[in-house]
């Protein structure tokens, strides 16, 4: 029972990381049918931006703001900085190439991924950097034999809130309907007076911003970051995207949580060494038996 609850909590936490990152893949894919392979490294960039704010702002404003103020500043800076990077990438790496075709754009995305991880290495160095305890909420509650960390609760609550907001915006507002319309039929959306470039920019700003928040959380949770983290998490989150159904926002969330739980329970009951085997086996099974993913695409076309 103890293992179960502990792994459930771990799985949900890791799952929220994947869900955050998966959303970025899904948003861009829904609108451009492009897999933004640079997205994982944007997540990595977010972790480094957050780290930088924490380290350098700690002495300057840390005392004034207190831990929570500092955390807020770090998250906001990481999210804004990474959103800006996402917009720049869209402008320089995709917009000029996209009209040529989808394959060149994917190659450009891979190139951007390599560029970003090397950029991070060049700026912050190849060694692991430590998220220090001084800017991590370290408290925990003990309920009987269970130990619940404040950080875990923070991660779960903020993922619920942020993903809930995104879901509401995309599914319930007119702007969200415009996003879905551009995803379905960009030309007809333009005839409705919708500027598809704005929608594309929305995807390239919001996805990376959410990825950055996940990046900072990962840094806090594992206490260390490295320039290769974007690749690892990017790959896992991409798997989560496929599992949930690519191009589908609730699907990305469900896929992410599912993947997190699968990893945690494999690690808890079988062996941590086997978790990737199970993750990618799940991916293969999904691709064989239900290629549209858990939440598949709604099919209502009738012409």
């Amino acid at each position, binding site marked *: 029972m103890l293992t179960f609850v502990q792994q459930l909590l771990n799985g949900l936490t890791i799952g929220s990381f994947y869900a955050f990152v998966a959303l970025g893949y899904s948003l861009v894919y829904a609108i451009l049918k492009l897999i933004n392979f640079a997205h994982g490294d944007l997540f990595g960039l977010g972790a480094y931006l957050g780290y930088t704010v924490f380290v350098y702002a700690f002495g300057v404003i840390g005392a004034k703001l207190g831990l929570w103020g500092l955390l807020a500043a770090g998250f906001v800076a990481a999210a804004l900085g990474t959103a800006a990077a996402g917009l720049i990438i869209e402008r320089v790496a995709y917009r000029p190439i996209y009209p040529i075709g989808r394959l060149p754009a994917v190659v450009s995305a891979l190139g951007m991924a390599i560029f970003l991880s090397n950029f991070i290495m060049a700026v912050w160095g190849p060694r692991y950097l430590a998220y220090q305890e001084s800017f991590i909420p370290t408290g925990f509650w003990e309920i009987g034999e269970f130990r619940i960390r404040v950080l875990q609760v923070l991660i779960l609550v903020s993922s619920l809130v942020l993903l809930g907001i995104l879901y509401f915006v995309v599914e319930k507002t007119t702007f969200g309907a415009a996003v879905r319309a551009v995803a379905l039929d960009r030309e007809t959306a333009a005839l409705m007076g919708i500027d598809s470039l704005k929608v594309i920019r929305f995807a390239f700003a919001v996805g990376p911003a959410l990825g950055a928040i996940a990046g900072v959380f990962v840094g806090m949770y594992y206490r260390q970051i490295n320039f290769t983290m974007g690749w690892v998490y990017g790959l896992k989150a991409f798997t989560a995207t496929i599992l949930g159904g690519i191009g589908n926002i609730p699907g990305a969330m469900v896929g992410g949580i599912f993947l997190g739980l699968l990893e945690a329970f494999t690690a808890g009951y079988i062996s941590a060494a086997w978790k990737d085997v199970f993750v990618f086996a799940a991916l293969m099974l999904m691709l064989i038996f239900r290629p549209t993913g858990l939440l598949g695409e709604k099919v*209502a076309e009738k012409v």
Partner: protein
Amino acid sequence: MLLEVDRISVAYGAVEALKNVSLSVSGAEIVAVLGANGAGKTTLLRAISGLVPLKSGAILFDGKKLHELPPHGIARLGVVHIPEGRRVFATLTVEENLNLGGYGCSKDEVKKAKDRVFQLFPILKERRKQLAGTLSGGEQQMLAIGRGLMRSPKLMLLDEPSLGLAPLLVDQVFATIVEINNQGVPILIVEQNARKALEIADHAHILEVGRLVLSGPARELAADERVRQAYLGGATYERRLRAKESRAH
């Protein structure tokens, strides 16, 4: 002159789809452009709403140069294009489709426009929570037209509204078009169904492989021997039309 298409040419690669085409729409009239498949009718509307670039020529609307604006900018001027094949957003609800028709308008305007559309098409009100893709062909056409009305159009471009509809529905759609026009909306319609289009139009043009070959008041064109031969009269044409309609079902 509300809309002035001035000697435009459009090319897809080496293929010229429109050659030196000029026409105009003024007041609250219905202007029809007739022609066979591939004559360039759809290209003409797509050029007006900015979906294809001009090779030469100019398009003026209310004195503004449309050919320099992006499609969404043209739509926001009140030039509403109801595309061929209806193109409703299949996985959005009927109501969301309508809301998007008024994208960028105030909440109040959208609500008022929606009430008007529901009055014109009560069936859309009944189905407003349904996904648009689950509507029948006729209902989708009503949705496409209703969506176009959401922005209080200053000019409506209609591309083959009768395509693939049963004859009874075709009559209904044309009656609706006349009703919209009676409320003061000028309409530029392209149709293969020449008979129907000439019935409701004030002015008409005949397009053949990218060129306007005949223009005039609709009544005169309907009486013109060449038009009757090529587009109205011939038993061949009627047979083709029937064959097309039965294929669509």
